[in-house]
């Protein structure tokens, strides 16, 4: 609030500028990237920018722009940031190139776990994984003598006990915002039950007892949630945690760091991480990855430079500087206490998100259709029938089924 702080801020800014340029080589080919805008991508693209001649575009509309921009000839961006699902349109349209040659040339520091292989060819280099897992208020659970829940039945029982004791009004938080978030919650539950979303002919297969069980569990959880659950996204749940309003939530691993942020959290050190609660087959969670792809419609020279720059972005130094920004797959990452939940979820056999063109349609149909069940407008059976009908219409229009 005075001149000194302003000057200090300026000085830090200048120092930040001077500290850069620690890139192994001097890039001379103009490069551009299009990625999502969250913190991990900021860290990675900042590290890439140290090589010079690089322009990062962190864009929240990236998934809408990427397919078109990579299909242009020459492609508007050389480097793309994708996740399981957003790679599908690029992959099927053939606008990203196989990376095997480049990996052989420049990829010595990559761990084999980072290669995303499709039909034997490396199509993307993964940099981080993310999944939803249980976060809980250790102090509340131990005060009441409740063991850490490992299944959703236990979560419900714990929630009932917490509510009974009157510690917090709403023991459970959930990213139940209508749309993608709510769809993802169903996907987690249904994967935990061992369900299959579509068959080999892309016909929907969710209207079964597993689907109904998943829906019923979602509804049972909402009984213990803030009644505004249909508008709560991960940032809101994270805030509820930080303000001590909830005791448990199945929240994204990338949000774990915020629980111990002294500047904004009132529960520093009290939130612990555990595996996602088990469904009847697997943990009710799905594993996501984010990674780098290189455009196909560019010259080999550009691809070469782009890959080298990308490798600089994904090196051990970057990870060291931003260790807690994410659950990195890059060698040099030291999993801290906050990554324990993500690791335990994976160790218990959580499945990868089943990304495919049909799944994209299904996820949207789920995200829009489930709210009617949770508000009580429809029963579980009707909800699933309607979601399947919505899926079929959309999939027919997309040409996925005839």
């Amino acid at each position, binding site marked *: 609030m005075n001149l000194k702080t302003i000057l200090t801020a300026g000085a830090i800014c200048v120092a930040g500028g001077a500290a850069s340029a620690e890139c192994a080589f001097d890039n001379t080919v103009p490069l551009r990237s299009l990625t999502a805008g969250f913190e991990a991508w900021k860290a990675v693209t900042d590290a890439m920018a140290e090589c010079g001649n690089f322009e990062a575009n962190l864009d929240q509309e990236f998934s809408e722009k990427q397919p078109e921009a990579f299909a242009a000839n020459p492609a508007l961006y050389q480097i793309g940031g994708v996740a*399981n699902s957003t790679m599908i349109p690029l992959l099927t349209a053939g606008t990203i190139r196989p990376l095997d040659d480049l990996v052989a040339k420049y990829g010595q520091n990559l761990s084999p776990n980072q290669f995303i292989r499709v039909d034997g060819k490396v199509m993307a280099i993964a940099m981080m994984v993310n999944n939803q897992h249980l976060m809980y208020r250790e102090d509340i659970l131990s005060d009441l003598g409740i063991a850490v829940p490992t299944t959703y039945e236990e979560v419900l029982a714990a929630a009932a006990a917490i509510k009974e004791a009157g510690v917090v009004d709403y023991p459970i938080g959930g990213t139940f915002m*209508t749309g993608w978030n709510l769809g993802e919650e169903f996907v987690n539950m249904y994967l935990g039950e061992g369900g299959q979303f579509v068959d*080999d002919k892309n016909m929907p297969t969710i209207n079964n007892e597993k689907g109904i069980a998943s829906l019923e569990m979602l509804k049972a959880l909402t009984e213990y949630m803030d009644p*505004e659950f249909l508008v709560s996204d991960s940032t809101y749940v994270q805030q509820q945690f930080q303000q001590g309003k909830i005791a448990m939530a199945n929240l994204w691993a990338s949000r774990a760091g915020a629980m111990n942020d002294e500047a904004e959290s009132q529960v520093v050190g009290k939130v612990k991480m555990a595996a996602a609660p088990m469904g009847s087959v697997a943990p009710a969670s799905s594993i996501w990855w984010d990674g780098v792809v290189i455009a196909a419609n560019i010259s080999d020279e550009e691809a070469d430079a782009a890959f080298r720059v990308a490798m600089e972005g994904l090196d051990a130094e970057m990870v060291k500087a931003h260790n807690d920004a994410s659950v990195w797959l890059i060698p040099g990452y030291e999993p801290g206490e906050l990554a324990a939940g993500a690791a335990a979820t*994976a160790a218990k056999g959580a499945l990868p998100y089943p990304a495919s063109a049909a799944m*994209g349609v299904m996820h949207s149909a789920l995200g829009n259709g489930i709210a009617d069940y949770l508000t009580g407008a429809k029963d579980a059976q009707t909800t699933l029938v*309607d979601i399947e009908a919505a899926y079929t219409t959309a999939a027919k229009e*997309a040409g996925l089924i005839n």
Partner: protein
Amino acid sequence: MKFKTFAAFVGPSVLMMLLFIAFPLVKVFWQSFNVTQPVYETVEVEKCTPGFLTQICTTEFQTIPQLDDNGDVVTRTTYVGLQSYRNVLEMERFWTAAKAWSWSGIMTIDFWKALRFTLMFTLVTLPLVVGVGLLIALAINNAAAAIRGPVIFVSLLPFIITPVIGALSINWLFRGDGILTALLEHWLDRDLALFAQAWTIELMMMFYRVWHVAPFAAIIFYAGLQTVNQDSLESAIIDGATRWQRLRLIIVPHLMPLIIFVAIIHLMDTYRVFEEIVGFRSQGYVISLQWLTYDFLTPDQAGNRSISRASASAMLTMIGIAVLLVPLLKRTWRDHRGTS
């Protein structure tokens, strides 16, 4: 004015509208009757994705589009007639529900749900905006000259503020234990969750819209009030007309063209209500027609989008606006004929 001169004057403007509105519109119209889709084939693919420490490899059947020799996706366009409109309207479900006299049944069909809200939103806010706008205008006109400037400035704030920001700030005030919700709770002495049921969200959206648009109406009415014929007002006073009579018989008729202008603009804008749905995240409870169009159009993460249904839904929205505007346009037509 000669045609050539006229063309020179309106040319640039018309050209812009043709390029960026008319052509896309023709395309939208065409798309609503045709479906373009990639030609898919099913192949067996082995995929490896990272687990936490080791890779997970799976073999599965995947549907992928065929590529031609240039590496472009092969697409096929088919004429489907009214199929896209049928998919949007879902008439069979509508009739089934209507025959069973099930209002809630109709309300589970997206289009009809959206239409119900859009119509209600439009028709409820219209009189409110005109009424509140008129009240503000009269009150400003009635205030001391010295404070008019600042008051007009403050009044205009809700109108000029960026809509996305406006909706968000209302959101903060009411969401969860937002400051105004806390105040209401204190007042009513009960726990409130304003975002937990449809009617409170609808109420807030209407409140927001009136808050946002009433200043526009007010400023236009205020400008109109400056040109009220003083002679007729004075003679009305001499004739012993009460304030209410003067308002009803002289001021409102004088403002009528402006009221119609505001009504037309407002009808067009509210029928396209969209920002409120996104800003208030209400799609779990209420949706609007333009939101439906937008939702069809937004690609899912795998890049699929329902362009044909979006086009059909957009055409339906246009038809809806046209129907609502007919009574107002009729009057403009009469005026035009009367003056020319």
